[in-house]
C-alpha cells in the first residue's frame, strides 16, 4: 500500500519551483465524463502548458467542477484522454493539486493551518515515516510564500475566506505541484482578498506553474487569466482571453443552457 508514496517518475525536480525551463504540456483530447447515465461533460479538447492560467467559464451545471475533478484523476473519463507531459494520465499524481470549493470543506475539522499544509507532503513520505527536515522546510517555505507564517498554529475555522484559500494554495505548494486545479477560488471573498489571490495566482504562473480555475464573475476574467475555456456541458471554445472571451461566444455558452431565456446579468455587462 506504500505505492502511492512513489509516484510516476515524470520529471521530478529537487528544487521548489517547477517547470522553469521545460514547457510541460497538459493535453485533453475529446474528454467526456458521465454520472451514471447523465452526461456531465462532452467533447472537451484543449492544450495548455505551465506558465499559463486558464479560466473555466460556463453556467451552473456546465461541468466545470467535473472537468477539474477529471483532471485531478478523481473521476474516470468515459471516453477521451488526458495527457500530462506527453504521458496518458491514469491516476492522480502529486504534480497535480486539487483545491476543492471552500463550501465543500468542513472548517470545524480539528486541524491547524500548518496541519493542512503538511498534508501536501504526504505523497513524498511514507505514511508512517516521520517528516524529515526537508519536509519541514518545504512546509515552512509554502507558508512563507502564502504569507501564513503568523497564522500557522491557528485552527482553520479561525481564518478568513482569503486565508483559507491561501492555506489550500500553500498545501499545493508543499506538494510541489505543477498544476493547480481550483474550484471557484474567488467565490465569497471580499474585494481585497480577491485582489490578493489574483496576485498570488500571477506569481504561481510566473514561477512556471499552470493554474486552472472555475470562475463565476465574468467582469474579472480578463484581468486574471490568460486563456478561457467556455463550457456548457459541451465545450464551446478554448483560446486566449482576447480571442475567445467575446460577447457572442458568451451568449452562445450561456444561451445553450438558458434555452433562449434572459442572459445572466454579468454577460450583458461584459
Amino acid at each position, binding site marked *: 500500500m506504500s505505492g502511492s508514496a512513489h509516484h510516476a517518475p515524470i520529471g521530478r525536480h529537487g528544487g521548489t519551483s517547477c517547470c522553469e525551463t521545460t514547457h510541460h504540456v497538459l493535453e485533453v483530447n475529446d474528454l467526456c465524463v458521465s454520472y451514471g447515465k447523465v452526461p456531465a461533460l462532452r467533447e472537451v479538447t484543449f492544450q495548455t502548458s505551465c506558465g499559463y492560467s486558464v479560466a473555466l467559464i460556463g453556467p451552473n451545471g456546465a461541468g466545470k467542477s467535473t472537468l477539474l475533478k477529471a483532471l485531478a484523476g*478523481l473521476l474516470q473519463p468515459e471516453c477521451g484522454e488526458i495527457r500530462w507531459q506527453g504521458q496518458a494520465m491514469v491516476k492522480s499524481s502529486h504534480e497535480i493539486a486539487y483545491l476543492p470549493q471552500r463550501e465543500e470543506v*468542513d472548517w470545524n475539522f480539528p*486541524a491547524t493551518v500548518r496541519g493542512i499544509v503538511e498534508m501536501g507532503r504526504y505523497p513524498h513520505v511514507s505514511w*508512517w515515516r516521520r517528516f524529515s527536515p526537508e519536509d519541514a522546510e518545504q512546509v515552512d517555505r509554502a507558508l512563507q510564500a502564502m504569507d501564513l507564517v503568523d497564522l500557522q498554529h491557528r485552527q482553520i475555522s479561525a481564518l478568513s475566506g482569503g486565508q483559507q484559500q491561501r492555506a489550500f494554495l500553500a498545501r499545493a505548494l508543499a506538494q510541489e505541484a505543477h498544476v493547480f486545479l481550483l474550484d471557484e477560488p474567488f467565490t465569497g471573498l471580499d474585494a481585497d482578498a480577491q485582489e490578493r489571490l489574483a496576485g498570488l495566482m500571477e506569481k504561481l504562473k510566473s514561477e512556471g506553474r499552470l493554474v486552472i480555475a472555475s470562475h463565476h464573475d465574468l467582469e474579472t476574467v480578463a484581468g486574471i487569466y490568460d486563456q478561457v475555456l467556455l463550457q456548457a456541458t459541451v465545450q464551446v471554445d478554448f483560446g486566449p482571453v482576447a480571442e475567445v472571451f467575446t460577447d457572442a461566444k458568451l451568449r452562445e455558452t450561456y444561451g445553450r443552457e438558458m434555452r433562449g431565456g434572459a442572459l445572466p446579468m454579468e454577460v450583458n455587462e461584459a
Partner: protein
Amino acid sequence: MNWLTEPFDLLIYRRALLAALVIGFTNGYVSAYVVLRKAALKTGSLSHALLPGIAMAILLFGLTPFSAFAGALLAALIVGLGSLLVSQTSRIDQDTALAVLFTAAFSGGIVILNYVNAPGELEHWLFGDIRGMSDSDLWTIYVIAAVSLLVLTLFQRPIVVMLFEPNVARSLGIPVNLMNYVLFALVILVLISSLQAVGCILALGLLVTPAATMLLFTDSPLRLFWGGGFLGMISSVSALVVSYWLDWPTGSSIVIVLGTVFVLSFLVSPKYGVLRVVRQRRRHRHEIHEASVT
C-alpha cells in the same frame, strides 16, 4: 487509598481491570475516527445490528471469537448494504432504511437469543458485564486492540486527510474506498470487543464519548486519538471502582462516567466550553455597546 485498591483484591475484578484498560483505550482511540467521520448514529445502528448475527452464530456453532465476528460482520453487512440498496432503489432515504432494518434485525436477535439455552444470555449481550471475562474473551480483546491500534496508528495521516476531505485525499493518491472498507471492518471488530463489557446498546457510548469530549479541548487529530484512548481507559477503570462501591452495573457505570466527564468538559473547557463562549459573546456585545456610546 484503600477504597481504590480494595476491589482489585478479588480475582474477578483484576481480570475486569485488564479488560477495562484494554477495551477503554481501544474504544477511546477508535472513537476519534467515528467522531471525525461524523458517523456516531450510523455506528449506533451498526452496534444493534450485530446482535442477530452473534445470536445466530451462537445457535449454530457455539460461541467462539471467530463465530461471533463472522456472524456480526455478516449481520452488519446485510443491514448496511441493505439500507444502501433500499435508498438507491426507492424513495426511502438511507437513514430511514437503516432505522427500519436495524431495529428489525435487533428484534430478530432478541428472539433468537431466547432459543439459546443459557440463562442470562440475553441480558449479557444487551448490557454486558466486564466482570465475566474468560481467558479467551481477554485474548480476543487483546488481539482486536492490537489490530485496530496498529492500523489506525500506521495509517493515521492518510486517514486524517480522508476524513478532512476525501477528494483531496484521492488527489494525493490515497486509496479512499479501500480504506473505508478496512475501517468499516475495524469498527465492527471494536464493537465486538466492547459488547462483552458494556453490551450492544451501550457500546456506542464507549465508541463516541471519549473523542467527543477531547474535541472540546484540542485542535490536533493526533491528540484526539491518543487523548480519546487515555480518557476511555481512565473512565472505564474509575467506573469499575464506582460500580464496586455503589453496586451499579459495570457497563452503565462506564457510560455514566464518560457522560459526566463530557458534560463537565462541555461546560468548563477553556477552549470550546459553553461558559467561555457565553462570556466571549457578552464581552463582544459590551465592546460594541462601548464603541457605539463613544
